[in-house]
């Protein structure tokens, strides 16, 4: 069963199908929020809210609409609301990751991640968002375009610019 079929069933009143979507997306969305705020409790809240809204606003899902873009759109709105309330701030990757660091992880990789995170923090919001969506979440340019209301070409240009900018920032930090 595709995501879209599952969501269509949910919309038609078969709410049990929501569990399929929850299981498929919970880890990705949780980590998506974690990338932005670095706080597990807050990310849990926001992930929960994303799925609550998925259920509450199930009637606003249109048949055939790509589910991934739709759910990330909801997630993005939740993130925006939380920015507005000024609760969410980019925090240091260090504190966010402390719990999950493993001894065996090569130091190089860790340093690179830290560098990447610090550079991301310095990017303007829209560029950071596009990179998180396209590179961390691995959404296709089409999907991001649907979410942000931009053409594929436009998303691509923005993403490429953001990557160049990010590279510059990393070089400066090094």
């Amino acid at each position, binding site marked *: 069963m595709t995501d879209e079929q599952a969501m269509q069933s949910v919309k038609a009143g078969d709410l049990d199908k929501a569990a399929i979507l*929850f299981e498929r997306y919970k880890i990705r969305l949780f980590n998506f929020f974690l990338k932005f705020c670095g706080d597990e409790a807050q990310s849990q809240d926001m992930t929960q809210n994303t799925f609550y809204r998925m259920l509450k606003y199930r009637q606003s899902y249109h048949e055939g609409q790509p589910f991934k873009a739709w759910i990330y759109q909801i997630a993005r709105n939740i993130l925006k609301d939380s920015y507005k309330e000024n609760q969410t701030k980019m925090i240091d990757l260090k504190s966010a990751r402390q719990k999950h660091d493993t001894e065996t992880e090569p130091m190089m*990789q860790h340093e690179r991640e830290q560098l990447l995170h610090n550079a991301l923090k310095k990017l303007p919001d829209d560029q950071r968002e596009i990179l998180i969506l396209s590179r961390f979440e691995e959404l296709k340019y089409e999907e991001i375009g649907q979410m942000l209301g931009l053409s594929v070409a436009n998303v691509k240009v923005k993403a490429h610019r953001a990557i160049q900018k990010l590279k510059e920032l990393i070089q400066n930090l090094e």
Partner: protein
Amino acid sequence: MNCEEIKIHLIDLIDNNLPTELQKEVEEGLANCPDCQQEYEELKILFQTFQNQPLVPTPKALDDNFYAFLEKEKAVERLSKSFMEIISEDTDNGKVDRVDGTSDLQKAKTFTFASVFTRKASLLRIAASIALLIATFFFGRQSVTEQNSEAIALLKQEIANTKNLVMLNMLKQASASDRIKAVSYVYEMEDADKETIDALVNVMNYDKSINVRLEAINALYYFGDKKEVRQAMTKSLRLQTEPNLQIALIETLVRLKEKEAVNEIQKLMENKQLPDIVKFKAAEGVGELYKL
């Protein structure tokens, strides 16, 4: 292909996004230029760093909360489905009544009985309680035992409770007309619990449609004997910016003889930014309330 051109395509090359022809060209150019190669390697490492970020597992509480919420939504969905059917039948009967006159009403009712009994399991309980009520009414009118009337009272209570729930759920509907329908349900209730009152107050203060808000004010009037209702209306005077709603609130509070609202109404009267009609209504209201 020069370096400039190659560099433009590097990201697409890594993403496997290039048409075969172009991909070949870029790869060839890349092989001949150490500078471009370095750029290519750097980008690849950058992208890998993105991808290699370990995924943090979700806390168990997330599962628990989601599944609890899902169960609640399922219960509400089941209830409102059953009741929506009964409601729409009620409405249909009403239409038949108005359009075709009373002779056809009988036909419509027979039809309703038939369909009540052919419905699925989820509806059976509700249908059965209604059937029992009707049966008792027709066959046992003279000899309703105490036990029976107790059972009927219970059933009535159960139906009333369910209607409450359905109303609360219907208030979440997207269309204004559905929400008005939900609010007007209140007229069939004998009493409203705190949750219902809170929901109505919330609609009165925050619903995006003016008409729905107005309907909520009308509905709340029915519970005007409750102090918290009158207080909520008084408070709402500050929130409302639509003249229609301000006037409706003033009129309702005066009808309810809520003296404690005088100060708030007076504020409207003295607010220079408001339209004359509102100020006039406010002045009239203040006068009425002082007379009491």
